[in-house]
């Protein structure tokens, strides 16, 4: 299955990237290009919605880490929405749960973002 990547920006300035399909060595470049493109357009607060991701491997993890590094260079943020246990397990195995903010829903992420302001 191909990877579908779409984005929209909320009134609050949060850019939500919805990802659907399998993120692996073949498709990860598409997500990487999207993250780079958004940063180049000045979008530094990103939320990647992974609820429709069916598969994620270390290449995908590397792309997310690379994206996080890019937005942090602009005092930005890259957080995730994910409740799927099989995806969360990969973040736990690699220790990345300490690196990424992981939320249960987009609304949850928005609420915490407002609370932090």
């Amino acid at each position, binding site marked *: 299955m191909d990877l579908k990547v779409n984005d929209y920006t909320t009134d609050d300035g949060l850019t939500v990237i919805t990802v659907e399909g399998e993120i692996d*060595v*073949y498709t990860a470049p598409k997500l990487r290009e999207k993250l780079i493109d958004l940063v180049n357009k000045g979008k530094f607060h990103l939320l990647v919605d992974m609820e429709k991701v069916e*598969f994620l491997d*270390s290449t995908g993890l590397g792309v997310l880490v690379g994206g*996080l590094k890019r937005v942090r260079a602009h005092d930005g943020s890259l957080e995730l929405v994910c409740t799927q246990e099989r995806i969360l397990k990969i973040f736990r*195995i690699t220790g990345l749960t300490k*690196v990424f903010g992981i939320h249960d829903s987009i609304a949850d992420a928005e609420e915490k973002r407002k609370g932090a302001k």
Partner: protein
Amino acid sequence: MATVELSFSALPVHVRTARLIVTAVARRSGIDQDLLDEVRLAVGEACSRAVAAHRRHCPDEPVRLELIDTDHRFEVIVSDSVPGDDTAGPGGSAAPAGLPEAGAARGLETAEDLETALDDGSMDLGLAVIEGLAEDVEITTTPKGVQIRMSWPSAPAATS
């Protein structure tokens, strides 16, 4: 004992092909449904690593995969044709001596730490995932290449 052998061109798209075949054979071998995702991911990581190594050093050589179904174990062997010293990429060290453990990743607190570890080759996310998922992992480096052997328990009454 039943064995399926597969060799595929070192193309990223065929890592997916390999995952599909592994999943089908693992299911047939009686692997528990809960373990299928882990088998699929670990084997995909091993194949991704082999493909990346081949594309750097010998893009025309195929990656080899063996799936061995015994009475109680489902074993997968992924073999590349790149001598061990080169597989970890620039600055990396040879497996198994340089094999980062899954625990190594847990010690990294920030994205910067992680990026540094990834950049200097002291950490390999793919190997960390394999180590975390496969019940039994053995990495062998020979002059001919690197072999990653993984296995999981399967049902004793696997069909022939």
